[in-house]
Structure formats: C-alpha cells, structure tokens
C-alpha cells in the first residue's frame, strides 16, 4: 500500500505536465477537471497509503523509499527519497484533501478568467511542491518543495500581473521568503557539519546527541526559515499583500497549506527543539506576539480578504505558540482544523466577491445573507469555529494550545487568551459587516451590482468544509486516551518531547474560560457591529496599518536599498572601481602614450601588434629550437 506514495506525489506533477502542454487545448472546464482529478486521485491514493501505514505497529510507522541518488561528492550523498511517518501522513492527507476541494471550487471561481488553464497549471505544480515539502526524505528535498511552493505562490499572487500591485506583491512574497530560505540553507549546512548527513533518517535520531549550542543554532536558523514562510514577526508583511492573488489561492496557499509549512518544519525537527529550550522559548514568544499583532490588526481592516490575512498571521502565531510550548500535537491539530475553517472562510469570502462583482470592501456590503444563503451559513460556521465556540473544531484545537501555554507560563496564556478574544471579535465584525445590517451596495448610480449565490461547483466545497470545520474537533477529543486519536497517532513522532501536562480538572476550568472568552468575543462583535458599519474609534490607523511595520521597512530598507543600488551602479562601479583599475593599468603598464593612442581608436593596430607579438615569440622560440 505504501509503495503508492510516489504516485501520490507524482499525480499532481503529471497533472501539471499535461496542463502545461495541453492545457489550452483542454480549455474550460476541461483543464480544471484534469487539474482537480489529479489532486483528487492523489487524495484517494493517500488514503490507501494511510491504511498501509496504520496497519503497522505504532513504533514501526516510518517508511523510507529511496528513488535515486540526487547529488553526491566526497562524503556528501543526497538521495531523492521519501520519508513517511504519521506526521507527514497527516500533512499529505489534509493537503491533498483541502487542495482537491479548492481545485473544484476554482473551476467555478475562475470560469471567466482568460488564463483559466494557466491557473490550474500553477495550482497542480503547487500541490506537487507541497507534497515534496512534506514527504521529502532529506533537507535539500524539503527545500526543493519549500522553494517550489514559494515559486508557485509568486506565480499565483502575480497571476493578474497586468496589475502593478499584483506584480509587486508576488515579487515581495518571493524576496521576503528568500530571507527565510537563507536561514534554511545555513541550518542545513550546520546539520551536515555536525551530523554528517542531510537525510531525516539519520539526523532525526542523531539530533538528541548534539550539543545544546549546536541544537540552538540549528533550530534558530530553521525557525528563521519558518518565520519567512509562515509570516511571523518580523517577516509577516508579505502575506497581506499576497491577497492580490485570486481568492482560491489565498485559501489554499496563504491559509491552509503553504504558510503552515513553517509549523510543519519545526514539528519535523522537534528533536532539536527538545535539546534547545532557548529556541523553544523564542518560538513561543514570537508566536504569541504574532498572534496578538495579527488579531489586533485584523480588527480594523475594511477589506474582506485582509481581515482573513491578518487572521491567518494570528492563527499561525497560535500554532507556533503550541510548538514553542512543546505541544506539537496541539499545533498540528490546530493546523489541520485551521485549514478547514480558514479555507472555508476564504472560499466564502471568494463567493461573496464573486457575487458582488469583485467588490472587496466590507463597508460596501451588508445584508448579503438574504442573497447568499449557503455562503452566509457556511461562513458563520467558519466564524464560530475560528472563534473557538464549543463544539466547533477551533474550540478543541485552540484550547489544546492554550492549555499548553498555561502549563508553560501563565503569562503566555494571558496574551494567548487575549488574542483568542480578539479572534472571536474580529471575525464577528467581518461576518456582520458582510451578511447583516443594512445593504450598502444598492447604490442607484451603480445598478450593476446584483448579489447572487455562487454556482454549486463553488457552494458544495463550502458545505464540505463547513462540516469539517464543525466536526474536525473529533480528531482529538480530550475525553480519555481512546478519543485522543491524533495524539496517539502522532506520539511516536514526538517521542522525545512529552507533551506538557495539564491535569484534567485544570483542563476543564481552562476549557470553560476558553468558552466564555469565545462567547464574549462573539457577543462583543454582535453588539458593536450589528447595525453600524463606520466606527473610526474602533478602527485606529495604527491597527489598519498593522503598526506601520511595512511602512518602516519601506523607509529603512526598500528606499535606501534602491538608492544604494543606483549609486553602486551609476557612480561606484563606473567611477570608483573602474577608475581605480584604470589608474592601476596606466601606472603598471607605464605605456601612457600607447593608452592614449588606443583611446583614439588605433586598436586594430594594437591588436595586430599583439598578434604579431605572439607570432614573434613563437618564431623566436622556433628558431632557438632549430638552432
């Protein structure tokens, strides 16, 4: 069964190649069907792989398949190989599953786009890269997937590249991610230097024996990579701009899958974190700070997608809080449930945008529940789920993370719970501005807006995701070890780091607090935004601009950097460096006159002289030789 794994990874690649060469001919919806089918089959295949893996005893659930030798020199040997364990299996299942739903949805969403087939070309390449990222058997192969998803993200953010803002956003995402990638490279080098290998089957068991300092450096460097990919402080700025891409892209790449790659990477490398408590603490602090930053910024956005973007930043922060506090299972649990409800929310937002003729401003919506019943109901499910209202999935997963934070340090928990309160609030605000209150789009001058429910090809994925968002908590219910399925399943992966212990009575109290906080957030949002839509005092500029971080980067990095590049190019290189070398040339060769003649254009004669010189040298030697 598990030998199907290369096919699971290969199917989206095959889909990509077919679409690349025949996509235009397949047309619409043909190209979309091919793209969806390849991912759907991959999902089916991964179910079989899962059956194979779970049939094994829990301590033997690691499957390594070596395909061929990628590159080697001296003592370095890097294979193209696949590494499957419960962690990667979980990733494969939810990535292919969610990607399949979003592919289906895209057939409807992109139906009128002139580059319909191109969209699926990129989307299939993305799924392939994401699968390589999670099942790659060595750090360079994970890096292949890592950069591959980044490149697809670049393509897809800049999908409507005629818009300068989209083109810039794509570029920005790629460059900011590359900063993280530099950390990935250095981390890999350090691993090789101290462990002599880059493949997981060697380095994961070997990590426990590394000195603490090395483990700290390794894990910090990889965390830099994770910060870039998963949009944490200070590299979160690209994710909001990434909303320039088509909405299914935001759902798939910038919410459900790619941005969680950083969380996956840290979970994958948990043996290093087990050695280094420093890094764990850094991750927890960055995580909770990002959770708060994202949540506060999300309260003041007026673009339907930007609320969700900052929400994603915030939720990723929660996941890192879980990683940093040693609650890996909780982090993965939150990652999976987040994929369900955030994909749902984004696709719901897409459905709204679709039905509103590309309107994204919340202030120009309202009362849409009457026109979009399916979208609004499923969106509300997503809201309650992310808010952490029991029994929606977010309650269980976020609760696990917060419990672990409490066990680690009550201070982390306080910040976390504050972010949780804000989460329930800002999503309530978005829900009310979109679906409730008076309609603000019925502008008589613009009679072209006729809100309508989206076609079935878009609403069915919404319904499936809503069910998952509602019931996803069943993956890991805290009622005895039999119901903690995810924890048992992932236990061998995180064997080195026992999860933080929370007594069941404390767990119950914290669960009640979580529920109260979630309901307060919901209530707050309802009371504040039920009938109002313009409250500047609740949307301060500092939050709208996310504490001006992007502006600061512009002023301190982008603008001076551009000036530096221009200066280097137009002054330093031609005037200083070239000038210095010219002086050197003139003084060394001490043939100033010749130089002057050269510059007057007598080069042919000079070239001739050189050629003759070589010939003369040759002739001289020949005559000496024959004499």
């Amino acid at each position, binding site marked *: 069964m598990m030998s199907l794994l290369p096919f699971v990874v290969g199917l989206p690649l095959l889909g990509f190649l077919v679409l690349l060469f025949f996509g235009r001919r397949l047309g619409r919806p043909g190209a979309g069907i091919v793209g969806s089918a390849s991912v759907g089959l991959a999902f089916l295949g991964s179910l079989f792989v899962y059956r194979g893996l779970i049939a094994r005893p829990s301590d033997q659930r690691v499957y390594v398949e070596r395909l061929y030798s990628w590159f080697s*020199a*001296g003592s370095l040997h890097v294979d193209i190989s696949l590494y499957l364990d419960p962690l990667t299996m979980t990733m494969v299942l939810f990535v292919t599953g969610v990607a399949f739903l979003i592919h289906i949805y895209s057939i409807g969403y992109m139906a009128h786009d002139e580059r319909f087939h191109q969209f699926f070309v990129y989307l299939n390449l993305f799924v392939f890269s994401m699968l390589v990222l999670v099942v790659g058997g060595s750090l360079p192969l994970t890096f292949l997937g890592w*950069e591959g998803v980044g490149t697809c993200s670049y393509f897809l953010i800049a999908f409507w*590249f005629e818009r300068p803002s989209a083109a810039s956003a794509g570029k920005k995402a790629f*460059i900011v991610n590359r900063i993280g990638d*530099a950390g990935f490279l250095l981390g890999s080098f350090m691993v090789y*230097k101290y462990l002599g290998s880059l493949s997981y089957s060697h380095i994961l068991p070997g990590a426990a024996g590394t000195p603490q300092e090395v483990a700290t450096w390794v894990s910090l460097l990889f965390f830099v990579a994770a910060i870039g990919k998963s949009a944490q402080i200070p590299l979160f700025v690209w994710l909001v701009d990434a909303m320039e891409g088509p909405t299914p892209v935001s759902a798939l790449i910038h919410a459900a899958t790619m941005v969680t790659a950083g969380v996956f990477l840290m979970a994958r490398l948990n043996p290093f974190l087990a050695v280094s408590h420093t890094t764990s603490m850094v991750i927890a602090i960055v995580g909770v700070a990002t959770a708060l930053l994202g949540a506060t910024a999300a309260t003041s956005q007026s673009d339907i997608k930007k609320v969700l973007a900052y929400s994603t930043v915030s939720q990723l922060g929660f996941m890192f809080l879980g990683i940093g506090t040693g609650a890996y299972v909780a982090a993965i649990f939150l990652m999976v449930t987040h994929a369900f409800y955030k994909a749902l929310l984004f696709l719901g937002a897409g459905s709204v945008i679709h039905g509103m003729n590309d309107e994204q401003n919340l202030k120009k919506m309202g009362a849409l529940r009457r026109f979009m019943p399916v979208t609004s109901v499923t969106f509300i499910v997503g809201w309650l789920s992310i808010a952490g209202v029991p029994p929606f999935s977010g309650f269980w997963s976020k609760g696990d993370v917060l419990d672990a934070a409490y066990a680690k340090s009550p201070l982390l928990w306080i910040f976390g719970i504050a972010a949780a309160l804000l989460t329930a609030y800002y999503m309530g605000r978005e829900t009310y501005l979109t679906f409730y209150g008076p309609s603000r789009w019925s502008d008589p001058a613009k009679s072209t807006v006729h809100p309508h429910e989206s076609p079935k090809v878009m609403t069915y994925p919404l319904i499936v995701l809503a069910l998952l968002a509602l019931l996803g908590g069943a993956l890991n219910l805290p009622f005895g070890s039999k119901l903690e399925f995810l924890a048992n399943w992932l236990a061998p992966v995180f064997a080195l780091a026992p999860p933080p212990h929370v007594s069941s009575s404390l767990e119950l109290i914290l669960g009640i607090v979580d529920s109260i906080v979630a309901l307060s957030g919901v209530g707050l949002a309802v009371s504040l935004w039920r009938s109002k839509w313009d409250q500047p005092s609740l949307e301060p500029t500092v939050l709208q601009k996310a504490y001006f971080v992007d502006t600061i980067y512009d002023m301190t990095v982008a603008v001076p950097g551009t000036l530096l590049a221009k200066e280097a190019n137009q002054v*330093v*290189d031609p005037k200083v460096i070239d000038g210095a070398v010219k002086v050197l040339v003139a003084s060394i060769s001490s043939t100033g006159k010749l130089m002057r003649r*050269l510059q007057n254009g007598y080069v042919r004669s000079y070239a001739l002289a050189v050629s003759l010189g070589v010939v003369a040298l040759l002739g001289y030697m020949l005559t000496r030789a024959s004499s």
Partner: protein
Amino acid sequence: MFPYLEILVFLPAVAGVLVFFFPSEFPKRYYKGLGVLVSSVEFIVAAAMLVQFKTGVGGYQMISRYHWIPEFGITWSLGVDGISLFLVILSAILFPIAIFGSKETKDPKTFIAWMLILEAACVGSFLVLDLFDFFLMFELTLIPTYFLMSNWGFALGGRAAVKFFVYTFLGSAFLLIGILALVFIHDGGTGQVTFSIVALAHTQMSSTAGRLLFLAFSIAFLIKAPVFPFHTWSPDAYSQSPISTAIVLGGIMAKLGTYGIIRFDFQLFPQASRSLGWLILTLAVVGIVYGAITAAGESHLSRLVAYSSLSHMGFIVLGLFAFTQIGLAGAVLQMFNHGIYTAALFLLLGMIYARRKTLDTSKLAGIQSKAPVMAGIFTLVMLASIGLPGLNGFVGEFMILLGTFISHRWWAVVGVSGVVFSAVYMLWAYQKVFHRRDPEQRSFRDLSVREVATLVPLVILIVGVGIFPNLLLSRIDPSVHKVLSDATTQSVAYHSSLGKVAGR
C-alpha cells in the same frame, strides 16, 4: 584509439582558417549553415568523447603527446579529466546554438571564421596539458573575440572591445611573466626546461616566490572570470558584443578563469593557494554581494546579466578556494550550469532586442501578456539562475556554500546573502519587463518555432541537470578528489621539506 581530442581542437581551427580563404563567389547565405554544420560535428565528436570517458577515473584520459619544441621542453599534449570534460561539452553545446541563433548579416564569411577559430581556442584551452600551449590558446581567444565585438557588436562595440582587450591582455602579461619565472625557477632547481604542468607541479621554491607567482597567475584568471574588482570590462563587453559573442564570453570564456585557477594555481602553487585563499575568498564574497547590488541598480538587461555573472562567478570562486571536495565539485558543476543559463539568458535578450530594439528595462513592459511562451521560458531560465532547487543552478550553489561552510564558515554566511539578492535583482527586472501592461499597447510577436528550437536544448539541460546532476558529478568528483589530494600531499611534502631545511 580514435583521436577525439585532436579533432576537437583542430576541426574548428582548420575549418575556421579555411573559411577565410573561401572564394568570394561562395554564396553568403551558406556560411551560417556551414558554421552550424562544423560546430554540430564538433558537438557529435564531443558527445562521443563523453561516452568514451571513463567514470571513476581521477586523472587525465585520452592523453596524447607530441614533441614540438624539444629544446624548451615544449610539447603538444592533450588530455581530458573531470574538471575539463564538461567545459569542453559546454563549448560544444553553446557554439552551435550561438551560431544558429546569431542574427549577424554583415560579412558572414569572416564572422563564421572568427567564431570557429574562437571555438578552437576555447576547446584548446581546456584540453592542453602544457603551460606554453595553454598560454597560446588563452591568448588566441582574445583576437577573435576582439574582432567579433568591434565589427559585429552594438554601437559602442569598438570601445568595449578595446577595454576588454586591454584588461585581459594586462592579465596575460602577468601570466606570461609568471610562466617564464616558474620555468626559470624550475630550470634553476633541476636543470631541466619544461612547460609540462605535471613536471612543474613539483617545483621547489620559496614561499614568497610561490605567493608572487600565485598572484601573477591569479590576476590573469580573476580578470577573465571576472572577479571583483577586475570586472569593470565585463558590463561593457557583455552589452556591446553581438549576442553570439556574449554567449561565448559569459558562458564559456568566463570559465577559462576559474578553470585556470583549478588547473594551474592549485596544481602549481598549492601552498600559496591555501595561504592566500582568504584573500581570494574575500574578493569572491565581496563580488557576490557587490555584483548583486549593482545588478539591482542596472536598467540595461545585458549589463544586468554581466553584474549577475560577477555575482555568480563569485560563488564559483568561493567554491574553489573553500578547498573542500564538496565545494570544489560544486564549483566545477556550477561552471557548466552557469554557462547554460547565461547562454539562454543572452539568447532571450537577443530575441527581445530583435523585437523592441532596446534592452532598457524602462522602455520595456508587459511582454508576458503578449508573449506567454517567451515569458515562460524566461521565467524558467531566471529561476535557474537564482538557484531554484530542481533546476540546474541549485545543486552547484548548494554544494559550493555547503563546502565553504565546512571550511570557512563566515565567508559562506556572507555568500548565502547572495541567494536573497539574486532574487531581488532578477525578479525586479522581470517585473519591469514582463509584468504590467505596455503603456503604448505595441504588438509583440511570441517566439517563433525556430527560436523555440534554439532554446529547447538549453531548457532540457536546465531541467535535466537539475533533476539528475549526478550524471555530471559522478564524472567530476574523482578528478576533484585527485586535484585536492595532490594539492594536499604536495603541500605536506613541501612542509616536510621545509622542516628538513629548518632541522639542518
């Protein structure tokens, strides 16, 4: 044994010289076909040579030696090893493509003749085993390049050619002095005049003499590569050359410099190469960063490629002077890969120029919506050049940085920043040229079948080498191992001989 190497050197040389003497009645439009034909035969011979090449052997293969000027110990000797193998293959791939893709209509006879002679000189430089022969071949590359640049180049081709000539010739002067000094020192020590690399590798000399000679050789190679701060000829030369010549300059001739470092610096002056390695490593990382920053400020695409080459050649030099097997093997692999994607970039620039008559990024916009095929291929080549895994630029760069990290950590850390910068300047340029809308809504023809055919071999190599780099590395690695172990044992022997002297 079939004389592969002799044919590889003499076929284009003889053909090139013969073309000069073709009668004027010979139809002009046949010359390009003739050039493609000769260089394609050259490619077939090179491919056959590659098949014959024994994997797992570190030393020279297919060696042939003829006495030439015995009084000076000058022989005509050829041989190929894992270091030179793929540089020869690279030349044999790029010349037919450069000639096929060339758009030069003026005086095709002389153009083709010079191109063929240039091919002979390039291939010859990689294959000869005698220092005198190498100098001859190394110099011989200058003359055709000079004429190609000044006669078929862009408006400022003449001036760029002078600059190119003066700079590289200055380096050659150092090289010549270095060669003669080395031969004299060897003569003084052993009473034997020889230009054979193998014999000269065992020359005993003081460490000061070794360092001076190392510097004399290195200047020639660093100018040729080019490495900071000896690069200022290259933006002019790359941008003013005809596309065909720019391909050869950036794709092949740049590697003469890095090849010279491995073959001569490392083998003749292993001790100095190590003790002065920090100096060259520093120049390399400065070049990586400086080249990238300068490229970011560049608005002319060919000049941008020149600065990007400065950055990328910095990576290669970094890998060389890391003195680790991983880094050196990566550098040799990267020489091939850099040649492939640089050539593809220049070809694409030529195709853009043919349509818009400019390569200024501020005057180009919105090509992607008009020419998706060109945009797609350009994107692929661009991603290869910024080292995207799965494409050919990655593996070499990764190995270089890993090898450097093992031996010289901080240089590698600075070098890694080049990974970020390369994305900045390439994506920025791409955005200006391909994204957005053309404000004037001019038409832009997508690639013709013929143009796609020119690019396809390079695209296949970019993807193929990215996925199966071990096909090359398995042939490169044994020679890299030999070069390094020779250099190590020699410097150990050198140390022990010093110890004896001191002991007395």
